[in-house]
């Protein structure tokens, strides 16, 4: 019976959807998103959920995707319902499941509940704020701005301590460092906050948000190169048309295979496609040489954004070009770089321990089998011995056992490729002075050849003094 267990485990592991990221609907969803087909994209997500592609552990991703897609589709109330639920779910998921954490140490990170990245939590509120602006509910939009502020303050507190805590763990096998500056302040959120406070007549709060906007840019050079858009109280003290746009899709996660070779008291880890010459060496006290294991890690890959400029026109008069106020893909990359150290460390430890346990099990099986054969041989007649030898049953059983152990080890090492599909790559913003009145606004989305690839029309937009006059569009090609 005990010899059958690896086969049973292999069957469970291979058949369990929770162990790998279901990517079957990704291509279809990406196609609809890139084709500006929001309703079709919503249908793809809804169908994928029906088919179990968003299991309960990934419910946050479902809510994020639906929230963003409904926003792009102009269904702001629906979007808010999903995003409100997403925010509550994210709060619930703050409490981590021990059982899943234990499982992730044995299997892979796909079994963990998707708890959302820090920047995703911020963008939930950014999208909600934009929804409320579109609905004309500015008090509610300001609620979102206050929530962004609370979350950003928490982020600043959170990350300073993380690396210290990890390196201070009792007898860690591997010591590691992490990038020193983290995503802890969001220019996009601060920008929106400044606008909302200003038009609410709270000029002091607006001034603080403007200061925070510049502080976010200055303190995070790995995310923001320079202030793309100047912002001041005096600039806002005119009649303005504000425009926001989202373009491109956030980075994709792809699986990269790694190999682990053990040496005496150390490990060599290297990407499978690059070879051992590029190996990183990690000290591992007490490990023997001669083991070879494989594991997969997620890697972020930028998706090409066709849009390079967005021109704004009012009644066919060119007003100007939007500025890229935030590279959301860059925020995702920087955040992922920090987490990557943890993912990497965890995967190496897990693969090594699992691999060694598997090897030991195989060796033990082989030894037990040998002993069993000897015992049997004592009791067998010569004729039976001959028949047994001929069939080679013992060797075959060992081969199957070994294959089952390898299958459990390899199948369970899958990269966690889960991500928020509907997250845009870049947020653009701009403001344009206009006399009070009603205008037909047009946005031209241009590619690298200055060709118009998409136009968005906003008929009869009222521009009034001391009011947040805003239009917003998205093209995630």
């Amino acid at each position: 019976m005990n010899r059958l267990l690896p086969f049973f485990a292999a069957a469970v592991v291979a058949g369990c959807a929770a162990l790998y990221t279901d990517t079957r609907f990704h291509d279809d969803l990406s196609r609809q998103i890139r084709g500006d087909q929001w309703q079709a994209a919503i249908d793809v997500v809804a169908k994928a959920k029906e088919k179990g592609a968003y299991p309960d552990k990934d419910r946050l991703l479902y809510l994020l995707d639906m929230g963003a897609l409904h926003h792009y589709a102009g269904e702001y109330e629906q979007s808010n319902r999903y995003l409100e639920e997403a925010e509550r779910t994210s709060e619930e998921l703050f409490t981590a499941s021990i059982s899943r954490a234990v499982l992730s140490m044995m299997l892979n990170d796909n079994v963990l509940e998707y708890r959302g990245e820090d920047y995703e939590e911020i963008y939930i509120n950014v999208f909600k704020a934009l929804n409320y602006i579109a609905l004309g509910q500015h008090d509610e939009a300001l609620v979102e701005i206050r929530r962004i502020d609370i979350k950003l303050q928490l982020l600043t507190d959170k990350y300073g301590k993380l690396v210290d805590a990890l390196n201070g763990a009792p007898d860690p096998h591997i010591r590691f460092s992490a990038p020193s500056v983290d995503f802890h302040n969001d220019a996009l959120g601060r920008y929106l906050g400044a606008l909302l406070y200003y038009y609410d007549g709270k000029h002091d709060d607006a001034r603080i948000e403007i200061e925070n906007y510049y502080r976010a840019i200055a303190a995070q050079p790995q995310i923001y190169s320079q202030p793309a858009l100047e912002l001041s109280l005096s600039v806002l003290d005119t009649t303005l048309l504000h425009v926001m746009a989202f373009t491109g899709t956030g980075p994709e996660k792809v699986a990269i295979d790694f190999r682990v070779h053990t040496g005496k008291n150390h490990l060599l880890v290297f990407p499978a496609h690059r070879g051992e010459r590029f190996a990183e060496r990690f000290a591992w006290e007490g490990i023997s040489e001669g083991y070879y294991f494989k594991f997969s890690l997620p890697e972020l890959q930028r998706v090409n954004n066709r849009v390079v400029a967005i021109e704004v026109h009012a009644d066919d008069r060119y007003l100007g070009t939007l500025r890229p106020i935030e590279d959301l893909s860059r925020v995702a990359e920087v955040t992922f770089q920090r987490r990557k150290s943890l993912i990497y460390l965890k995967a190496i430890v897990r693969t090594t321990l699992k691999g060694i346990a598997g090897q030991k099990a195989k060796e033990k099986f082989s030894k037990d089998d040998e002993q069993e054969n000897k015992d049997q041989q004592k009791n067998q007649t010569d004729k039976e011995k001959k028949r047994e030898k001929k069939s080679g049953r013992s060797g075959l059983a060992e081969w199957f056992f070994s294959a089952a152990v390898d299958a459990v080890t390899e199948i369970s090492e899958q990269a966690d490729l889960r991500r928020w599909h509907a997250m845009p790559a870049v947020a653009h913003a701009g403001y344009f002075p206009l006399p009070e009145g009603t205008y037909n606004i047009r946005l031209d989305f241009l590619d690298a050849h200055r060709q118009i690839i998409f136009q968005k029309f906003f008929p009869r937009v009222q521009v009034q003094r001391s009011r947040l006059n805003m239009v917003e569009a998205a093209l995630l090609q």
Partner: protein
Amino acid sequence: MKGSLISLLMVVSLLMAVLLPGCAPSTRVTRIESTTPTDLSGRWNDTDSRLVADEMIRDVLMRPWLKEHVAQTAQKPAVIVGQIRNLSSEHISTETFIKDIERELINSGQVRIVAARDERRGVRDERFEQQHFASEASMKAWAKELGADYMLIGSIKTITDAIEGKQVVYYQTDLELVQIESTEKVWIGSKKIKKVIERDKVRW
């Protein structure tokens, strides 16, 4: 071999327990008294709304402006509940809060409440239709609405202090009663609620 058998069985059991969605509990519904305090997320809820409305209205009705008004006019004051702004970091249904305040004021029997602007619009539509469709005897006349003497306005604000897993939220509700004719503020009340919300870092 026995040891590895037990370990493997443990792993498989753990897998089953965590990965099988069918093991989740089914929906349960229990009816409870509407006045029973229920704090689930730690956010502003119906209990906060009711408690704040009760206390603030008790306070406003105890203050001298009421006696002075009755002494001067020999009538109950007519009050309208105006805008109560949500300046907090939570989506608070100010409509519910306004209704709680109106209910407490009416039930006190010491003031008269004038319908809010949106409600008046509906009533006026009804009166307009009566001019065409109701009998002369039952038709209600124009320009006989009760004009409010005072307007109650205010805001709900929050101050949040948070670290990972723990949050202290301080709610401050400010209400002001303004005499409509003179714009004189005759009463200012403030009610504060402080909540500590803690979240477990781990669960099984």
